[in-house]
């Protein structure tokens, strides 16, 4: 069975290392914060200008002046720092954030990502996504493997306008965990009960299936 949003988030959370500064995008990426492994501590960066983002506030502590990049009211942990958006993106652009997790419409075998614009539909803007993908050494895309009509979102070449070129190296879908290497998707782990044939059928771009593909486990 394909993975739930929560399962996808929990699998990605296993990639977190103690001491990582992490930027989590809106949507499923945000859920990753709920599955941080025991013994691992990360500091969340919010690109509007907050390092050390805490949980949502209570009715008593809610403050209009304390929001995250998704414009949600949040709190700051002890040891947080707050700064301008220029400083925040200096941090991001300068490669100081250890891991970025974000969603996408499409990715391709070259590591290109399209996540912000569907021609003919209303364009709302890229926000900080282009800055994040252009700069992070370490990016994980979380997305469904195919759209609701069954069309693959892992392509030989992105069809939508790009968010960034050649920047994606790891992908978490509802069917699999994959890496992007040398112009191909490499299958690393399958969702429990999902066959390699199904993944192959739903992957439009070149797919390499090594011998050591494992099945994910969830406790």
């Amino acid at each position, binding site marked *: 069975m394909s993975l739930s949003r929560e399962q996808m988030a929990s699998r990605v959370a296993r990639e977190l290392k103690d001491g990582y500064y992490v930027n989590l995008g809106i949507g499923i990426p945000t859920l990753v*914060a*709920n599955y941080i492994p025991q013994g691992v501590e990360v500091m969340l960066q*919010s*690109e*509007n*200008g*907050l390092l050390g983002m805490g*949980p*949502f*506030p*209570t*009715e008593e502590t*809610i*403050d*209009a*002046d*304390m*929001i*995250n990049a*998704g*414009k*949600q*009211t*949040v*709190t*700051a942990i002890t040891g947080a720092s*707050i*700064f*301008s*958006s*220029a400083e*925040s*993106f*200096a941090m*991001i*652009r300068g490669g100081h954030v250890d891991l970025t997790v974000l969603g996408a419409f499409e990715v391709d075998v070259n590591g*290109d990502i399209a996540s912000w*614009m569907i021609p003919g539909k*209303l*364009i*709302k*803007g*890229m*926000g*900080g*996504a*282009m*800055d994040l993908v*252009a*700069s992070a050494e370490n990016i994980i895309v979380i997305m469904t493997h195919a759209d609701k009509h069954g069309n693959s979102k892992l392509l030989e070449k992105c069809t939508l*306008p*790009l*968010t*960034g*070129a*050649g920047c994606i190296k790891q992908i978490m879908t509802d069917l699999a965990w994959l890496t992007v290497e040398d112009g191909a998707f490499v299958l690393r782990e399958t969702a429990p009960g999902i066959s390699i044939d199904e993944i192959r059928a739903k992957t439009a771009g070149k797919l390499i299936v090594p011998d050591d593909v494992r099945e994910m486990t969830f406790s």
Partner: protein
Amino acid sequence: MAGFDKVVPDYAAAMAGLEDGMSVIAGGFGLCGIPEGLIAQIKRMGTTGLTVYSNNCGVDGFGLGILLEDRQVKKMVSSYVGENKLFEQQLLAGELEVELTPQGTLAEKMRAGGAGIPAFFTATGYGTPVGEGKESRCFNGVNCILEDAITADFSIVKAWKADRYGNAIYRHTAQNFNPMAATAGKITVMEVEEIVEPGELDPTGIHTPGIYVDRLIQGTFEKRIEQRTISASGGA
């Protein structure tokens, strides 16, 4: 020090000189840290044909969104313009021009404008629609595009506390784009929650030195919340 007293008597004085067709940089992110009273004054003035540089364009009926009601804005330069139906209508009707700019590039362009850096290279946007028509160059194996600075006729910013010399601090994440915006206007107008005595702010803790501020006014703020997210337990 009369020559350094930036306090103006009212909103009319704060925005005096703003004319049709001018450009305005506005601080704020979403509805957080926006100069509510200065935006309201621009609406009252009815100035039209404005080019506005701001990360967002407010929402229907609040923030920069209110400037759309009387079609005062000709062009928005923003990274995200989602939450606004009037914006959508005017955009689709061709009444409003939009230049989408990545959030970090927008912040850096304002900073560059204020800092006398006319242009800089960045990897952000290379190979995307943002990079089209821009000069590109490879540095240490990373493809970059050349982005130019933003300056404007006016900058409108919102701070928490300032002394009458314009030395200011921002509260929590209401800082966002305000410090860069403050540096990049030919005339920078700052609206604050509280005017304090010179010396009350720690000199090394000042976010915006008064040299950037031309006019200062104390306002009252609604501080509307765009997404009220609550955790009863304090857990996310």
